[in-house]
């Protein structure tokens, strides 16, 4: 009887995020894909299958797979040691570095594209490498954006991992390499797989990066769907690619779910060690990664301090204006306030829904339905933003659900983007809680809420705060969905930056660069504040 009630309660709890997903993802995507399958009122699956035989589609698919794989591997190679240095060691300036690492992830791609290209274009400081317009540049840019995801998700997980097993192994005579291979990596696996699957989804659906860095020579599924939908109105071909994308992503998620299973590890809260000389390789590697991340940012800052031949702060002073010849309808400062307000709503929504999902999928047992739930909430990352965006237009267009002109649409769309990140940050930590602790608490008379408050929340609150900050940052920088849905009277900061960079004149270009630096600084400040909050509370526990 109790079990039955439990199942009902779980189902009710799951209904909330599922309803949101159905409404803001499944329904719009189905509507758009449906148009491709039923072009003129007749169901024509043959036409869709025909699209998949085109040689160009094969090329596009192949490029998507290998560029995303390479981007994921590079992100891991750069990100894992950095996650260790920033989350398992204690040194001055660490909090700032942790905050800075997130910045690339939230910068608008068009800005990063310009900053990156200024470095590698033949006239730039790295022009000699001949990277401009090459596939190498695309992979490098993919890693630039996604290293932060690896550092964040794996770092949060690593932070709460019990170091005693590693210490025990070392005390028993294992070399550092043996400890890493036999103790650390297996224990870390769920976090790494979580991060890798998110990064792979981001890489395989990268849009702006591929367009800007590839110089049109390369196309992935995402850019192809964009061209087919917005330029050629070939909905059948776009639907074919969307379905293909969905199938591949689902397959990968099933695979990832298999690998992610892991034994629980107990956790302790204790001070992290200071770096010793044995940490030198890790620290060097981290320094190298940081240099790679900071180089494009430095090029951005340099550009923001320059107007034509003159150096100075004039671009920053101009941020309170509407630009040369009224390029903007609202000043950058006002757009920043709008962005912060929207981000607050979006982050709260993502945290609410994401925590519910993470809680549900991390319960021990539950089997297939839980795995399914876990995977389903990753799907939004794996489907073309264009398909979702156009889907909004063609499905949510009638009362009682005419959401096209609702002010809530932008934060809701951003929350859907941040949701998988919240789940992936919180779920591995919750999952690694030893269920015996819950059982012990329950047998001592604690009710389910009490168990939650005394066992799960103390274990996961760092991850919750990390997820909240990450969600906020994602929303601050989100451009794709926002530009699709935003209305003109209240543009967000990335939308304003995009406008500025698309207009002639040194003043507008300088302002775009300065506004990007402001966005980067705001993100850093938000992440730092979250860090402080987490740090400050450690003493209480």
């Amino acid at each position, binding site marked *: 009887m109790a079990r039955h009630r439990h199942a009902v309660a779980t189902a009710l709890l799951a209904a*909330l995020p599922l309803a949101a997903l159905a409404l803001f993802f499944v329904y719009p995507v189905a509507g758009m894909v449906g148009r491709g399958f039923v072009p003129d009122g007749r169901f024509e699956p043959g036409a869709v299958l025909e699209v998949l035989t085109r040689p160009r589609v094969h090329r596009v698919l192949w490029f998507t797979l290998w560029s995303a794989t390479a981007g994921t591997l590079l992100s891991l190679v750069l990100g894992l040691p950095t996650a260790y240095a920033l989350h398992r060691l204690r040194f001055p300036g660490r909090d700032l570095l942790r905050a800075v690492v997130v910045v690339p992830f939230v910068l608008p791609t068009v800005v990063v594209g310009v900053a990156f290209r200024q470095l590698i274009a033949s006239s730039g400081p790295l022009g000699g490498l001949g990277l401009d317009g090459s596939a190498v540049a695309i992979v490098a840019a993919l890693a630039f954006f996604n290293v932060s995801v690896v550092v964040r998700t794996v770092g949060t997980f690593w932070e709460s991992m019990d170091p005693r097993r590693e210490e025990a192994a070392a005390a028993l005579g294992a070399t550092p390499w043996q400890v890493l291979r036999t103790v650390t990596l297996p224990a870390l696996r769920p976090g790494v797989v979580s991060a890798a699957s998110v990064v792979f989804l981001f890489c395989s659906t990268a849009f702006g990066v591929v367009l800007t860095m590839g110089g049109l020579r*390369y196309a992935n599924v995402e850019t192809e769907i964009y061209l087919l939908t*917005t330029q050629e109105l070939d909905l059948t071909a776009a639907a074919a690619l969307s379905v293909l994308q969905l199938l591949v992503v689902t397959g990968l998620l099933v695979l990832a779910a298999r690998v992610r299973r892991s034994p629980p590890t107990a956790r302790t809260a204790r001070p992290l060690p200071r770096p010793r000389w044995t940490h030198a390789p890790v620290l060097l590697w981290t320094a190298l990664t940081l240099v790679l991340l900071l180089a494009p940012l430095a090029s951005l800052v340099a550009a923001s301090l320059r107007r034509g031949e003159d150096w100075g702060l004039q671009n920053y002073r101009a941020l309170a204006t509407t630009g040369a010849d009224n390029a903007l*309808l609202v000043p950058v400062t006002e757009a920043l306030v709008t962005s912060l307000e929207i981000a607050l709503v979006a982050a709260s929504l993502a945290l609410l829904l994401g925590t519910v999902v993470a809680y549900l999928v991390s319960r021990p047992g539950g089997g297939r339905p839980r795995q399914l739930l876990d995977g389903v909430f990753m799907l939004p990352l794996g489907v073309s933003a264009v398909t979702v965006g156009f889907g909004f237009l063609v499905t949510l267009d009638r*009362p009682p659900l005419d959401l096209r002109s609702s002010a809530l649409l932008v934060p809701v769309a951003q929350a859907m983007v941040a949701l998988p990140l919240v789940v992936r940050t919180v779920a591995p930590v919750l999952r690694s809680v030893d269920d015996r602790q819950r059982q012990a608490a329950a047998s001592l008379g604690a009710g389910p*809420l009490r168990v939650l408050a005394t066992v799960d929340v103390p274990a996961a609150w760092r991850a919750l705060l990390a997820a909240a900050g990450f969600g906020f940052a994602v929303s601050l920088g989100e451009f794709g969905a926002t530009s699709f849905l935003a209305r003109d009277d209240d543009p967000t900061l990335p939308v304003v930056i995009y406008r500025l960079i*698309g207009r002639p004149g040194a003043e507008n*270009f300088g302002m775009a660069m300065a506004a990007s630096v402001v966005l980067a600084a705001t993100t850093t400040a938000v992440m730092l504040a979250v860090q402080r909050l987490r740090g400050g509370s450690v003493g209480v526990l």
Partner: protein
Amino acid sequence: MRIRVRSLSTLLTVGALTATLAACGSSGSSDAGATEDRTTLTVVTHDSWAVPDDVLAAFTEQSGITVKVQPQGDAGQLTNKLVLTKDSPLADGVYGIDNTFGSRAVDEGVLAAYDADLPASAEQLRLPGGEDRLTPVDYSDVCVNVDDSWFEKEGKQPPTDLDDLTDPAYEGLFVTPGATTSSPGLAFLLATVAAKGADWPDYWQALVDNGAKVTSGWSDAYEVDFTAGGGGGDRPIVLSYSSSPPFTVPEGGTEPTTSALLDTCFRQVEYAGVLAGAENPEGMQEFIDFMLGREFQQALPDTMYVYPVDADVALPEAWAEFAPAAEEPLAVEPADLDANREKWLREWRDIVTQ
């Protein structure tokens, strides 16, 4: 008892979501319920919309109608969104469909008829075949620009026409945004189609062989690769607009350092129209008349970098001097364009991306 507490909180959250959704729904349906509302007007535009608030306020004062503007991407995206949503239109009217996509919007039945009173100079800018659906509001000329100061410094003669761009003397100096990813890029492809006819693929092959660089968007080409752009690139020939040179007048200087090659231009005409099924078609008609009026036309060059269709409206001083429009722009027949757009783009992609 405990279970009941949990179920209750669950119910509360579900209730909260339902309430949120209901709120979304009601805010949406307030638009739909506004059938009688003749005082607001929703207009979808391309992303370059930048008309100052005081101009719109003047319209509100004169007509009692408040305009709500919703940018929806570039001209192509805008047109295709309208085609996809024609059964349940996004707005009352549209501004920003151009002559590269105009025939699609007309053929798909997106627009309602409205025959506006045009200034004489705008008659020739009407869209053939869509005269009663789309009203020309402004135009711009997409032309090859050169950095004169660069050529002077190198002691070289700058190119003057399309053929020069395939001359080995200018190898590796030209950069253009792509036709599949940018509006000016598509305009330039059409310029070459107009100039070279069926031989345009050979011309593009020669361009590519001569080291032409293709970027995804205008800002990439102009701000990163162009020598006179914000990033100080290394290519002194770029595809931009005839109105770009005035922006390169150095601070304290009197003359721009760049110029447009007026024999390479494709004219992009931008139109406004009433959407079929609009809730407030009369309001949009009134707004179209306002767009053809002096105040709106005068604001166009400074805010959206385009020429007014009304030739009697004075251009800004720097434009009059340094940004003349092309006298004989290259043009493609709309019917020809509509029949071949996708084919040309596909061929172009094969040449450029091989």
